[in-house]
């Protein structure tokens, strides 16, 4: 009895699942599994692969370029995160009011977010161009000799950070604004009745109740921005003199320029595991500072 009806039922299930499941298996799950195997090989795709065990991982320990890239990546995130958090919070607080024209401002602040990294990187490379760029011209008007920005090893990473923060500000703003709007009006009224000042209301009502949104933004931003690549590739290409070389840039360069597929795969695994640990740590630490309603 199971036979005919059971077969038809499974046919329906497979028909609905297969179009999405098969590509996912072929192009995400499969490569994920294969990647761990790949990291044990020496393979430039031209000659046959050679099994070398954990040599790629051992090599990573002594790869000073990779270590420098890891430090640059951390530096990027540490410059970027406070900028978007403080900026995004400020704008979200300003926009969280029933005033005319707020929707327009919100739309404008979000605009860079829909623009591709390549375009944003090009825009800022031009704005920050040491010769003829607008920013240095304006600085010159007030008597400041602008730096060499992306042509200067010291200023290249700050240039990338500025462009990145400019783009993502709107994203952080939208998330925090959504968080602000979930805070019930009654809490503010109760605090006002108790004679709490504006500052006290911000400190004891807004901030604690906003911590879940801030936590979300921090987790997502860290995952995304440790993988910073597009804007670096276009703005500085890792230069000058390797000053903006980041982990993703190392992975791509090793895999597709140096023909070291296995070595790049090993890098990507170390990096992936590091990100997993970082995220896990954040979830552990959240109990200390995130308010749960």
């Amino acid at each position, binding site marked *: 009895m199971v036979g005919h009806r059971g077969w038809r039922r499974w046919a329906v299930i497979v028909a609905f699942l297969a179009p999405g499941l098969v590509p996912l298996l072929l192009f995400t799950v499969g*490569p994920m599994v294969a990647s761990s195997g790949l990291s044990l090989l020496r393979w430039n795709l031209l000659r046959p692969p050679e099994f070398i065990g954990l040599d790629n991982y051992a090599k990573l320990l002594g790869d000073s370029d990779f270590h420098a890239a890891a430090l640059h990546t951390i530096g990027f995130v540490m410059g970027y995160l406070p900028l978007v958090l403080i900026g995004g919070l400020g704008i979200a607080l300003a926009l969280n009011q029933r005033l005319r024209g707020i929707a327009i401002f919100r739309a404008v*602040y979000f605009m860079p977010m829909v623009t591709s990294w390549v375009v944003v990187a090009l825009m800022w490379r031009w704005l920050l161009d040491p010769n003829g760029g607008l920013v240095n011209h304006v600085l010159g008007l007030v008597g400041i000799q602008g730096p060499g920005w992306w042509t200067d090893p010291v200023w290249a990473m700050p240039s990338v950070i500025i462009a990145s923060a400019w783009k993502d500000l709107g994203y952080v703003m*939208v998330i925090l604004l959504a968080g602000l709007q979930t805070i019930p009006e009654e809490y503010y009224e109760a605090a006002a009745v108790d004679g709490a000042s504006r500052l006290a209301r911000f400190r004891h009502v807004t901030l604690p109740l906003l911590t879940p949104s801030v936590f979300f933004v921090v987790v997502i931003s860290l995952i995304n921005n440790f993988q910073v690549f597009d804007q670096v590739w276009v703005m500085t290409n890792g230069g000058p003199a390797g000053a903006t070389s980041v982990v993703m840039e190392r992975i791509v360069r090793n895999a597709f320029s140096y023909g070291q597929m296995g070595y790049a795969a090993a890098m990507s695994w170390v990096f992936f595991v590091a990100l997993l640990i970082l995220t896990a740590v954040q979830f552990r630490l959240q109990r200390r500072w995130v308010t749960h309603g």
Partner: protein
Amino acid sequence: MDDAARRPAIGAAKRSHRSIERSRWRRRLGRGLFYAMLAAGGCVMLFPFAWMLSTSFQTADALLVPPPQLIPSPIETGNYAAVAQAYPLGRYLLNSLAVAGTSTILQVLTSAMAAYAFARLTFRGRDTLFMLYLATLMVPLQVTIMPLFVEMKYLGLVNTYAGLLLPSIASAFGTFFLRQAFLGLPRELEEAAFIDGAGHWTVFRRIVLPLSLPALATFGIFAFMASWNSFLWPLVIVNSPDLMTLPVGLSNLQGRYTTSWNLVMAGATVAVVPILLVYLVAQKYVVRGVTLSGLKG
């Protein structure tokens, strides 16, 4: 007596009137300042776009001579033609449209179908399979990109449209998101349809899909923007200019034309305008789509 008694009261009334007046003024001033600050911030966000547009209409000579002009004079409209002549800019544009369009349609369709299976069909191993779906959300492109490239190489798909497109025809995030939307739909209509003898496909197409249009639009726009803006995979898998999408084509343009910013900005403008149009028309869905996922495409 009466007068004397009343005088302080009048004085108080006058004073309070004055202080109300003053606080109203202060509020107006505060609001004015507030708008001024928001507007200043808005200028910071808008200005780079304006500057890009302005530069794209400048002559090369005008760019070299300070001070920089926001309104170009003379207005040079030839930059667009110049870029299009040196680079297949139109081709990049068509490629981007075709790839983003196709991958969006396929992603919405495959995700909606799988989401229907997870939301409405019962079968053994469903929840385990769904957990697997969720787990793939964690997998970053940087881990899969090398094996994916090798796979494409063995399938003979390096430097083809298929190679460009295939990794983005299904989406675990879309499946998750649409399942959530389908679970929120009332079941009565579907049950009535089943009683009338409709099959799952009919119910899916005639009831579930039409009722979830906002969710489909939100995810569709997210998918479109992710594909339109995606850079790393197209950079790796395609190397002939005929197959390049706008972001990759643009990044090449810059390598050659480091000093010709008017040409580069013309190219950048071409890449930005379509996506800004989508944003203008469907702002609500764009903000929702980009915000919901939090993940870059």
